[in-house]
């Protein structure tokens, strides 16, 4: 049935010719061409902001290109909607999932099928697909009760039931543990072996090398190279991706970690939100001059932990949170900020800044005591000067303090938000997903700023999904799984595999310490 990779005269499954898409502020895709053969696993590589997402939206019919051609099995097509893309045989697995939380897995899948089979017949179909690709799914469970990995399987099975000729996966491993990534790759290889082409979007070079047959590299909206990843090195692909060698961080000049600044003691927090995670007996301590990294798949209690630390969630037990020994569990975010405990939330546009307000106004969100106001009135000149300092210090590219926060790119806004907090020289800083969706240049600036702040003696907590980031900057690493937090272990005493294993939870909380035996293998 399916034409294979090697057969000549078989048209490409998908071919793009000179695709261009410009937005008022930026050219997202410029002269982008690529070809995917039937059964090929093709990577689209590029850093955040390179135009990968726009390209996928064009292929999937969510966005219309300004110019360029698209060929499907050798015939020119214009795809106007996701519905049309699906009819052609294009399936998509979204990074943040296109699922309905309160509906069951089976209902979610039924919604995407052109016909309406009975629920029993559908359950049989789901099980058979699940079995043949190793993607177990329980059809009867509502989505909100599933783990992130299970949700992804629902999406993949949903796409597969339409028997697609091309499956697009957008950063599919960002939510998975290293072990789950392996299982996913096995399934994807089987899917490709059955003749379905795969477009795999990622910025993780080691994954691309182990999975993909070929790759198209994007930078600034343009194709900067195509390659067979197995014949390249991560460094050579990275050069195509960012145009230069991967930047390195300045050597730390840090002294040994000092006294404990912030402490959390046995915090249990039942959740009132049915979609949330309860915290179970969480304890931690952050010392001055260290960065404590918290690894884990999102949705395992990180948001709840963050709210307990920042003060958005106040606790009845005042002493459960202590700053320099003082009980602060009952204090709100503003009061904790006044004591030198600051935080940077995960979501830039929903929490960190008001998109429709100017950068200067956004200063007041967290910097509003002391000189920012007088007698309850705003000192506009002061907040403008503060915004200016922040823009200059952290190299924020924008239209000045009067620019709306929403007009900045993700990386620049993130630099601005983190800069706004760092300029206040906080003694303790809690940061969630500091470089999520941020370009490499901005990520380096942000991580360097955190390292510098640590070297000046601050106690820093970084919650991140990116293991690489934590192994880059954290001094100690702890793992969050199922609302529980493991103890923090020196970075040198653990490994990615150990951390990955702990992220899956279960197994009676495995130790993060690399055992003697593993040590030899890991080194």
């Amino acid at each position, binding site marked *: 049935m399916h034409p294979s990779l090697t057969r000549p005269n078989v048209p490409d499954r998908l071919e793009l010719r000179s695709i261009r898409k410009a937005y*008022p502020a930026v050219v997202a895709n410029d002269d982008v061409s690529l070809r995917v053969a039937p059964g090929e696993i093709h990577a689209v590589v590029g850093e955040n902001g390179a135009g990968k997402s726009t390209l996928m939206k064009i292929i999937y019919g969510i966005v219309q290109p300004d110019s360029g051609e698209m060929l499907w099995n050798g015939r020119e097509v214009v795809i106007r909607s996701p519905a049309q893309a699906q009819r052609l045989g294009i399936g998509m697995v979204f990074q943040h999932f296109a699922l309905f939380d309160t509906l069951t897995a089976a209902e979610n899948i039924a919604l995407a099928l052109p016909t309406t089979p009975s629920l029993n017949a559908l359950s049989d179909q789901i099980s058979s697909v699940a079995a043949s690709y190793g993607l177990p799914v329980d059809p009867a469970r509502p989505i909100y009760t599933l783990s992130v990995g299970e949700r992804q399987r629902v999406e993949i099975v949903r796409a597969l039931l339409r028997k697609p000729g091309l499956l697009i996966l957008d950063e599919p491993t960002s939510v998975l543990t290293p072990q789950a990534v392996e299982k996913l790759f096995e399934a994807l290889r089987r899917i490709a072996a059955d003749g379905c082409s795969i477009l795999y979007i990622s910025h993780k070079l080691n994954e691309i090398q182990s999975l993909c047959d070929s790759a198209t590299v994007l930078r600034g909206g343009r194709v900067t190279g195509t390659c067979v990843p197995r014949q390249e090195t991560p460094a050579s692909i990275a050069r195509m991706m960012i145009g230069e060698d991967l930047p390195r961080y300045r050597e730390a000049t840090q002294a040994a970690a000092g006294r404990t600044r912030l402490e959390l003691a046995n915090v249990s927090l039942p959740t009132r939100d049915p979609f949330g995670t309860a915290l179970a007996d969480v304890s931690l301590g952050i010392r001055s001059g260290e960065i404590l990294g918290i690894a884990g798949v999102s949705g395992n209690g990180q948001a709840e932990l963050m709210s307990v630390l920042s*003060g958005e969630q106040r606790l009845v037990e005042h002493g459960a949170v202590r700053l320099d020994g003082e009980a602060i569990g009952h204090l709100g*975010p503003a009061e904790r900020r006044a004591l030198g405990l600051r935080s940077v939330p995960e979501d830039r546009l929903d929490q960190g800044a008001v998109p429709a307000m100017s950068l200067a106004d956004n200063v007041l969100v967290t910097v509003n005591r002391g000189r920012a106001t007088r007698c309850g009135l705003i000192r506009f000149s002061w907040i403008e000067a503060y915004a200016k300092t922040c823009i200059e210090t952290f190299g924020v590219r924008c239209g000045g303090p009067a620019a709306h926060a929403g007009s900045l790119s993700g990386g620049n806004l993130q630099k601005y938000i983190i800069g706004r907090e760092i300029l206040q020289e906080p003694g303790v800083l809690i940061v969630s997903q500091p470089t999520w969706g941020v370009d490499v240049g901005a990520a380096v600036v942000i991580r360097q700023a955190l390292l510098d702040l640590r070297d000046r003696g601050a106690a820093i907590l970084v919650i991140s999904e990116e293991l690489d980031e934590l192994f880059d900057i954290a001094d100690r690493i702890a793992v969050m799984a199922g609302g529980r937090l493991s103890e923090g272990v020196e970075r040198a005493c653990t490994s990615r595999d150990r951390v990955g294993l702990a992220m899956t939870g279960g197994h009676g909380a495995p130790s993060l310490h690399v055992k003697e035996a593993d040590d030899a293998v890991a080194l």
Partner: protein
Amino acid sequence: MPLHFEARTKPSAKMVWLAPATALALTAAAAMIVFASAGLDPVQALATFVLSPLSDWYGVGELLIKATPMILIGVGLSIGFRAGVWNIGAEGQLTIGAIFAGYLALRFGPGDGIWVLPSMIVAAVAGGMLWAAIPALLRTMFNASEILVSLMLNYVAQLWLSWLVFGAWRDPAGFNFPQSEPLAPAALLPVIIEGTRANISVVFALVAVALGWILVGRSFVGFQLRVTGLSSGVARYAGFSPHRAVWIGMFAGGAAAGLAGVGEIAGPLGQIFPTVSSGYGYAAIIVAFLGRLHPVGVLLSGLLMALIYLGGDSAQMSLGLPSAISGLLQSLLLFFLLAADVLVQYRIRYAPRGRSALGAAA
């Protein structure tokens, strides 16, 4: 459709003020259509509608008297609306203000103590705030929609007033009409422009505009309210209490409406009727939106809405149209404004589609 609405990267500053002007023009056009369909000369009827109320000083005074409650309440409501606190209960809060002040006036008014009027004002403001506190309390304690609760309370307040005026407060010498006895002079607001009915409450409205401007435009509290309205996530992260925003928003509206209530019975009405408001509580919602939730804008839109009220009266007298036309035009104005606001956020672009919608393989 070849017309495309393209989101602007940043709202058009020009359109922010052009939109109300567009809405006004469209409303005038709609008014002319209504006049024409009633068999009148549209241009002349519009002129009568707009100009005749302002032909003398008395008319100007009437304009001020009508605009005052709407400006007062409009300023109060816009503070809440900015914070996403939807107080739809100004009509009821005004009524309660009138009831509280009316009680004092009827009980102590006949003596001519100078404290009667000030205490009426305090009571009215307190009454409006009390009535507004009910939805605020239910919202902060039980998360009940303040829109629905405040709206329901309008009917309750109205029924309470009816019960009083049809019962205990009915004037024994009033030929059995449902109305109280006239308020004593000591309980009436002093007139500030000779030959008109414009009284001191006009000054209250101006003070409210000034205070509102400081709060909304210059103060940190105003900033907190705006952030709360724009993004609950940012407000939570910043530590701005959403409950506090609800209380401030509801109290601002309630106090202003209560003040407007005493302004009615101690001003143009001079006694208490089963209905003390000509729909000012609802009209003020339009005033607030039309004025861009900004006190200075509210001042202008309040005057405009008052003119439409007066125009409705003259349309009834000299054109033979139902005075309900003013409500119709006011609400049309709000609709047109919401429509014109699309231009603030979007750019309209004409872009015909070249290629056929179906691909070869579809």
